[in-house]
């Protein structure tokens, strides 16, 4: 970017190596802009974001949990149902926050509001914008996850210091879902498929990723499908981190999430170049 004037370096079709200082500067500029742009809404979105998982924790965990007898709880390997669902609810909430933000709000930034059109008029490339935007959604999920982690810790659902790492799992799960959905949104002209995605993909992932009951309790085909979703791997990993009883499979869960995220970021860069570069 040395010899070009700013307006020429809008980098149409230009590819730069990933590890280059200017790339990271560009991405953090997008990130910081988002942080500043949304600063007024942080209070209410934090409250609204905490209300839903907290309600699930107490209504389903404690309320419905009181109807589950000890023998069933023992088969789940826990003393209380609230402890069982807590870490899982955190992970699927992070998934839901990031996935929902990948639909309407992302469309708003790309098309309606024109914020990202303005970004592309700067030296920031489309691929950098895509990566920075998904990173930003991961941060939103991190804030939601970390604050709910505090609720979980206060409710006594976290038995080990390793539980702190659940916030990181929430970010990975958020990226794993945000990346493919953002990659989809960037190519859409209209938002009319969003209600369908939200009802037929995101909500079932929330319920059937093993946060509320083992996926083995579902018909075998559905259970097998659940096991290839990144959210299930996240739920399992988070549950083991909460108790501190890690098993060898957790390494596989972590690897699966990392690979899924890497593929997602790769896809986002391709799609942003394809649809936003002239």
């Amino acid at each position, binding site marked *: 970017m040395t010899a070009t004037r700013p307006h020429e370096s809008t980098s149409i079709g230009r590819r730069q190596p990933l590890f280059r200082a200017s790339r990271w500067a560009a991405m953090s500029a997008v990130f910081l802009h988002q942080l500043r742009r949304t600063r007024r809404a942080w209070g209410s979105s934090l409250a*609204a974001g905490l*209300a839903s998982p907290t*309600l699930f924790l107490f*209504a389903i965990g404690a*309320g419905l949990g009181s109807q589950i007898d000890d023998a*069933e709880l023992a088969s789940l390997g826990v003393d209380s149902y609230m402890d069982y669902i807590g870490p899982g609810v955190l992970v699927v909430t992070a998934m839901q926050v990031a996935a929902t933000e990948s639909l309407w709000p992302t469309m708003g930034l790309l098309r309606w509001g024109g914020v990202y059109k303005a970004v592309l008029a700067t030296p920031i490339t489309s691929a950098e914008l895509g990566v920075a935007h998904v990173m930003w959604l991961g941060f939103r999920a991190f804030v939601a996850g970390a604050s709910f982690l505090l609720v979980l810790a206060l409710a006594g659902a976290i038995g080990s210091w390793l539980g702190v790492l659940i916030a990181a799992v929430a970010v990975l799960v958020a990226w794993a879902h945000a990346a493919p959905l953002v990659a989809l949104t960037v190519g859409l002209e209209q938002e009319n498929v969003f209600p369908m995605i939200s009802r037929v993909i995101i*909500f079932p992932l929330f319920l059937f990723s093993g946060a509320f009951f083992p996926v083995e309790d579902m018909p075998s085909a559905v259970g097998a499908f659940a096991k290839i979703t990144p959210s299930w791997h996240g739920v399992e990993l988070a549950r083991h981190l909460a108790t501190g009883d890690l098993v060898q499979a957790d390494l596989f869960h972590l690897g699966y999430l990392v690979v899924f995220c890497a593929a997602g970021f790769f896809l986002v860069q391709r799609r942003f170049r394809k649809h936003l570069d002239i």
Partner: protein
Amino acid sequence: MRVLGLRPLPVFERNAVSFRHQWWVLLSGVAEPIFYLLGMGLGLGGLVGEVELEGQLVSYPVFVAAGLMASSAMNGAIFESTFNFFFKMKEARCFDAMLYTSLRMRDVLVGEVAWSVARGGLYSAMFLVIALGFGTIESWWAVLSLPAAILIAIVFSSLGTYFTTFVRAWADFDLMQLAILPMFMCSTTFFPLSVYPGWAHPIVQATPLYNGVALIRDLHTGLLGWHDVGHVVYLLVMGVVFAWLTIRRMSNLFFA
């Protein structure tokens, strides 16, 4: 259309026509309660087993299906009478246009409320058929659960519309979500009243959704009692009161 009772019909028709290219968006609203029935009723039901209802043991899928049918009436009616009503009132300015015709305020409101009731009723009816397929209906009284669901939809349509007349911006709807979500989770939809401590019983019993859930559950199981008359009266009174308040307030807003 000059016939008095048919005046709101064009308003209803306009809403129906506006969905003609997006009927699948309309119909897919029933997906959420069905997923809840599969997840909570059948998935979690294996862990829960049976719950106690009026001294008798009821299998958990039967228990939760009744709660979900009442909630789908609420959700359909609330969504239409808040978000969509606000959009039509403030963004699209539909009502200003309608009032330039021979329609009166109360015709517009009756048409709008009828449409949101229809949406809540549609979801409940679809859900009832699905619940029948899953075998969670235990009594012929369940035939009456559809009119009961429509009554619930009337209550939440008029409540939702009344609330929307106070809304200034989209962000105000967060307040509504803060009331609707706890009500959905805690109005004995997923677990019986006996779980709560004694002092909390009157609070739960005062919510409109609790009355709707209790009524539909008694109809689905056939375990009817005199208290069901109380639920019906409660819902009727609430629906009428808020419908009247809304008509008064909207007339003031548009003609004052």
